[in-house]
C-alpha cells in the first residue's frame, strides 16, 4: 500500500540523517566498528521485545506484560542454572543443562502468553487490563522466587549467547535477526499472519468470514510471550544475572519502536522491515547520546518526546490522506 511504501522510505532517509547527525556530533567515536559492534550487542534485547509488542499491537491490542514475562523467564533459567551447575563449570555436559534451562524459560513465557490469550480471547477482557493484571501477578511471582535478590553466576555456555560472536557477528544480533525473520514469515507468509492483520482491523467481519478469532488471539499472545522469553535469554546472558525488575523502562521503547516502525495503534498495519529500521534509528540515537555523555534518564525523556513527535507527524499525514479521500 502506498502508505507502507513511503513509510519505509521515510525511515531509511531518517536513518541516514541520524547517522550523519551522530557522526557530526561525536566524530569518529561513533563511526567506528567498535561502536557498531557494541550497538549490535545492545539492540537485540529491545528488538526482540519490540517484536513481542508488535504482534500484540497488530491485533489492535497491547501487551504490557512483556517485560515482566521476560524477567520471570530469566529467573526460571537462572534458578535452574545456579542450582544445578557451578559458575565456572565448562564441561561439555553443561550445554545440555543450559539448553534445558532455556527451554524451561521459554515454556514459562509461553504459559504466560497462554494466560494472556485466555483472558483476552476467551473471557473477552480488554488487552490493556488483562496484560496489566498478568504483569502485576507475574512480577509478583518473580519477587517471590527471588526474594528480591539478584541471581547470578552462569556457565560460559550461557554467557556465550549474550556476549559471544560467530565469525565476528555478535550472537545476539543473529538471534534477533532469526526472530525478525521468523516473525516476518509468520506475518507475511502464513494464514495466521493474514488473519492477525485482518482481525486487528475488524474482528466482527473476520468472525463472519469463518476466522477463529479466539485461536488467532491465543496464538498471538503465546507468540508474544515466547518472544519475551527469547529476549530474556539474551538479557540475562548479557548481564550474567536475573532480577525481578530489569528493563522496566523498555516498555515505552517497545511501543515507540513499533509506532515509529509503522505499526498502527489501531491495529491491522505494520511490517517487520519498518520495525527493524526504527530499531536501528533508536539504537543509533541511544549510542550517540551515550557517547555525548547524556544521562540515561534524559535519554528516556527524549524517547518520550520522539514518540509524541512521531505520532503527531502520523496525525498530519493521516489528515492529508483523509482530505483526499472525502468524495
Amino acid at each position, binding site marked *: 500500500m502506498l502508505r507502507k511504501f513511503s513509510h519505509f522510505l521515510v525511515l531509511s532517509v531518517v536513518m541516514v540523517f541520524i547517522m550523519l547527525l551522530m557522526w557530526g556530533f561525536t566524530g569518529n567515536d561513533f563511526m567506528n566498528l567498535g561502536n557498531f559492534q557494541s550497538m549490535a550487542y545492545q539492540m537485540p534485547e529491545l528488538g526482540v521485545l519490540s517484536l513481542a509488542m508488535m504482534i500484540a499491537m497488530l491485533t489492535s491490542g497491547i501487551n504490557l506484560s512483556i517485560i515482566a514475562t521476560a524477567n520471570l523467564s530469566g529467573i526460571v533459567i537462572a534458578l535452574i542454572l545456579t542450582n544445578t551447575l557451578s559458575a565456572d563449570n565448562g564441561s561439555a555436559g553443561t550445554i545440555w543443562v543450559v539448553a534445558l534451562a532455556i527451554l524451561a524459560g521459554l515454556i514459562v513465557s509461553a504459559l504466560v502468553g497462554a494466560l494472556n490469550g485466555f483472558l483476552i480471547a476467551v*473471557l*473477552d477482557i480488554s488487552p490493556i*487490563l488483562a496484560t496489566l493484571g498478568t504483569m502485576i501477578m507475574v512480577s*509478583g511471582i518473580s519477587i517471590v522466587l527471588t526474594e528480591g535478590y539478584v541471581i547470578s553466576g552462569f556457565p560460559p555456555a550461557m554467557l556465550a549467547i549474550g556476549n559471544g560472536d560467530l565469525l565476528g557477528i555478535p550472537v545476539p544480533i543473529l538471534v534477533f535477526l532469526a526472530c525478525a525473520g521468523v516473525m516476518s514469515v509468520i506475518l507475511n507468509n502464513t494464514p495466521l499472519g493474514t488473519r492477525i492483520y485482518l482481525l486487528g482491523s475488524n474482528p466482527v467481519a473476520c468472525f463472519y468470514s469463518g476466522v477463529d478469532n479466539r485461536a488467532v488471539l491465543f496464538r498471538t499472545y503465546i507468540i508474544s510471550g515466547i518472544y519475551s522469553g527469547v529476549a530474556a535469554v539474551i538479557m540475562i546472558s548479557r548481564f550474567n544475572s536475573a532480577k525481578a525488575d530489569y528493563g522496566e*523502562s523498555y516498555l515505552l521503547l517497545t511501543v515507540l519502536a513499533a509506532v515509529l516502525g509503522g505499526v498502527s495503534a489501531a491495529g491491522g498495519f505494520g511490517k517487520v522491515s519498518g520495525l527493524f529500521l526504527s530499531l536501528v534509528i533508536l539504537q543509533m540515537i541511544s549510542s550517540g547520546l551515550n557517547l555525548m555523555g547524556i*544521562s540515561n534518564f534524559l535519554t528516556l525523556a527524549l524517547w*518520550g518526546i520522539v514518540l509524541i513527535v512521531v505520532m503527531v507527524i502520523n*496525525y498530519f499525514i493521516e489528515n492529508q490522506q483523509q482530505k483526499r479521500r472525502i468524495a
Partner: protein
Amino acid sequence: MKRLLTRHETYVFLAIVAFSIVITVINPSFFTLENLFDLLKSYSLMGTFAIGMLFVLISGGIDISFTAIATITGYTIAVLLLKYGESLNIVSVFLIAGGIGILLGLFNAAIIYFFKIPSIITTIATLNIYYGILTVVSKGKWLYGFPTWFGDFNNIRVFTLYTPDGIPYGLSIITVIWFALILIGWFILRYTILGRSIYAMGGNPASAQRAGFNLLGLNLFVYSFMGLMAGIGSVIQALLVQTVAPNSLVGKEMDVIAAVVLGGASLTGGTGSMLGTILGVTLIAIMGNGLTLMHVSSLWYKVIIGFVILVSVGVSAYRNKRSTRKHIITEVN
C-alpha cells in the same frame, strides 16, 4: 434488591467484608480503631490518586503519567520548603503543588485532544518525559529536613484517643482532606453538568460532539483534575514520610489503576462511581494490611493483588458477556 445484585459495587463490598472477617479471625488487631485510622491515613495517598484516575477512566481515557507529575510537584514543594520553609504555610504548599499538577495535566490533555493520540501512548510518553527531566534536574537526591510546622501538620488529628500504653491515635487531618476530596469528586460527578458530560463523552464521544458538548474543555478538565490530584497527593506523601525521593512513586501507577478498575470503572469509558472507587481502594488497603497482619511475607503482595485484579476483571467481563447475549434475544422478539 435485584438492582443491588447487578451492581458491581455490591460484590466488591462483599469481598471487603469477607476479607475483613478472615483477617480479624487470624489477627484481631486488624479490627481496632487504631489500625483502621492508621490505614485511612496511609492510604489517603492512593485514594487521592484514585479520585483523579476515576475521572480520566470515565472520560474514556487513561493516564499513567500521574506518578511522574506527582514526583515533579513533590520535588518542587520540597525544594521550596527547604529554601523558604518558614514563610510558607500548608495552604500555599497545596496550591503550588496543585497548580503545577494542573499545568502538566493540561499538557497531556492538549496532546491527546489536538493530535488524536491514544491516551495510553501519550501518557506513556509524558511519564518518561516528566520523569526523565526531573531525575536529571534533581540528580536523584532525596530531600528531607522540612520545617517543623510541616512535620507538625502531619500529626494533627481531628480527635485524639489513647491506647492503653498511652500512645495517641485518631482521625488524621490528612484523612479528612482525602474525604473532602472524595466529596468534591462525588459532587461533581453526580450533581454538575460537567460531571454528567464526562460520563456522556466516555459513553459515546461521537454523539457528544454532535450534540455540541465541549470535548476540548472536558478533556482539559479531566487530565488537569488528575494533575491536581497528583499534586495534592504528592504533598500528602511528603507529609506522611517527611521526605521526597525521586523514585518513590513511579512504578506504582498500576496499583492505582487496579484499585479504580476493581471498583467498577471500565477502561472503555462511561462507567464508574466514586463509591466504587472508594471500595476498590479499601479492598486493596485491606488486602495489603491484612497480608502484613497475617504475617504473610510482603513478597507475596504483588502476586495476590495481581490475582485479585484478574479475577475481578474476569468476573466483570463474564457478567458483561451474559448480559449482552440476553439483550440480543429480546431485541429479536
